[in-house]
């Protein structure tokens, strides 16, 4: 039970800004949706059997025109069905490419001793290689969220290091606090990553997310 749809709806419900994702399952639909989103768009395969989409050609970035959409859709269907023979394919997910900004990750884990814990870190190598992240046991209020953000070693990057403009810290705080509030009503969430949340001078937007729920509690 960890469909993209669920986590996106949940984030929207708790008023976390998300970059819209629209599902399409035919060539006509794909073109229509892409045109209405506006270019460039990103296309991702939608399949319950594929978790690492990029490994199987299931992600295509920076699609700039109707013609490119046409080719991308055909290429993706071919590549995926060749690489994962029996995969059930529901179609594709389309999203307008996000404007560049500072990528951060905000995550949740259910800890057996302390319950829900929220993690914050900068995206990409900062989280993957340096593991430069901070944690708080929920509930997390805005003051605690601010401390979490300032606590990581890379926080000067958000403050506008090296001539860049400062990122909207309050927008990050808002996401952390909203997430914390949402968790109070959702004890069955085991893991959740918003990765990346792209932060701008003003505002921030969730571009991708995934969630794992405790199935036992769903039945």
């Amino acid at each position, binding site marked *: 039970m*960890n469909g993209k749809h669920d986590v996106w709806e949940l984030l929207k419900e708790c008023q976390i800004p998300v970059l819209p994702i629209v599902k399409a399952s035919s060539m006509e639909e794909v073109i229509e949706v892409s045109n209405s989103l506006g270019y460039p768009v990103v296309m991702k395969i939608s399949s319950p059997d594929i978790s690492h989409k990029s490994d199987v050609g299931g992600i295509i970035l920076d699609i700039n025109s109707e013609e490119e959409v046409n080719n991308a859709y055909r290429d993706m269907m071919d590549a995926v069905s060749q690489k994962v023979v029996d995969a059930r394919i529901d179609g594709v997910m389309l999203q307008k490419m996000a404007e560049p900004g500072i990528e951060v*990750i905000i*995550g*949740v*884990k259910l*800890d*057996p*001793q*302390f*319950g829900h*814990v929220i*993690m914050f*870190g900068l995206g990409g190598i900062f*989280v*993957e290689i340096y*593991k430069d*992240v*901070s*944690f*708080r*046991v929920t509930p997390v209020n805005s003051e*605690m969220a601010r401390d979490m953000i300032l606590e990581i070693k890379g926080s000067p990057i958000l403050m506008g290091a090296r001539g860049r403009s400062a990122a909207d810290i309050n927008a990050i705080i808002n996401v952390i606090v909203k997430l914390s509030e949402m968790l109070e009503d959702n004890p069955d969430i*085991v*893991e*959740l*990553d918003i*990765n990346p949340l792209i932060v701008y001078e003003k505002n921030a937007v969730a571009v991708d997310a*995934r969630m*794992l729920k405790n199935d036992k509690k769903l039945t």
Partner: protein
Amino acid sequence: MTLKAIFEPESIAVIGASSSPGKWGHVILKNLLSNGYKGEVFPVNPKDQTILDRKCYNSVFDIPVHVDLAVIAVPRSYALNVAEECGKKGVKGIIMVTAGFSELGGEGREIEKELLEIIERYHMRLVGPNSLGVVNAHTGMNASIISRLPEAGGISFITQSGTLGLALADWTMEMGLGLNLVISTGNKANIDDVDLLEYLAQDPNTDVIAMYVEGINRGRDFITAAQRISKPILALKTGRTKSGAKAVFSHTGSLAGSDEVYSAAFKQAGVIRVDNIEDLFDSALALSVQPAPRGNRVGIISNGGGASIIASDACERLGLTIPELMPATQQKIKKLIPEFASAHNPIDTAGLAKFETYNGIVRHMLLDPNIDALVVIYVHTIMGDPAQPAQAVVDIRRGDCSKPIITCWMGGSGTEPGVKILKMGGLPNYPVPGRAVEALASLVQHHGFLEKVKI
């Protein structure tokens, strides 16, 4: 329902008391009888008439008076019956030394559940099972297998590991650390960390709480309880190393290991996390005798440059700063040290360690508004007198000045006359600068918690 019956009992039954010196039932009885405990102690064992010259009772029912606490050290197969008898007798608290319960898993877990049912049915409270006992150094109650009674003081020590706890208690005695309660929690089936924190918060004899923790069961309650306690709480939590990597769904899942979560939880709870046993007791000592500083600006005084540099480096590493002194302070210090020595922080007296030198410099630095805390170092030489600078620091009347002083008398046994004076004067002393600064960093951290976390 109070835990007082366990930690300050007026009468104790030792069930499973034994006349053979190798058995715990013997050791505990002997410890209870030989450390000045003023309450009544009743050995219980149907096999003996007397043990250690005391009348031995067949069962707890035969004891003619009320019993507050029962220390149970019988084989596991008798443990439930004995607990039930205690309940019927009206015993308020039990320390279950007997092992073989949930720590073994399987059947042991089931028997522990049954034990817990008995405890709850009779409204008793239980330390353990699988506990190595409880010590109250103030009342002389040694209901444990610790070989001797620690010096009485303000540090209460909660330990989850039995044997390590005992070794640590022994070690604190070597250090001359003053303890109040030592509690070996065992399996924490009934009384757990949260209960103990709440009790120790109210206990007038406890100034500092030191914990050796392997795991905490009621995590959120622990955070809430600790936030409400202004007394310093120190925790040595083991298991920092990661267990084997497992299949992971998200980045958060892989990064939020149990250790990271404990660190976050301790920070939120206002619990000072230490990395090793030495830090645990070094910090506990400093917190038990010195006030928390208002900030992280440290003044360092030494009769040798090398030691003060080591101390400065340690400060830097732990987020403490070594600020410049006020010009007026520097002027006054210049008059106390040789001309070629410098009056900049850290102060190096260029070998001088006379009473007037140390007394004057420490006084001036305490008055300096740029300084929140002092580290006073004395490096012993064959010509030196460690007592003079020690007396010089102890003699300073600090009045309501809340700046802590940490001392470091280096040079082994030669420093002993000075070390004695420092201890009598309530100054925490350490043999090397690194340990002194670590302890000071805990004081600073506690102040931060008082400002930000504590309710």
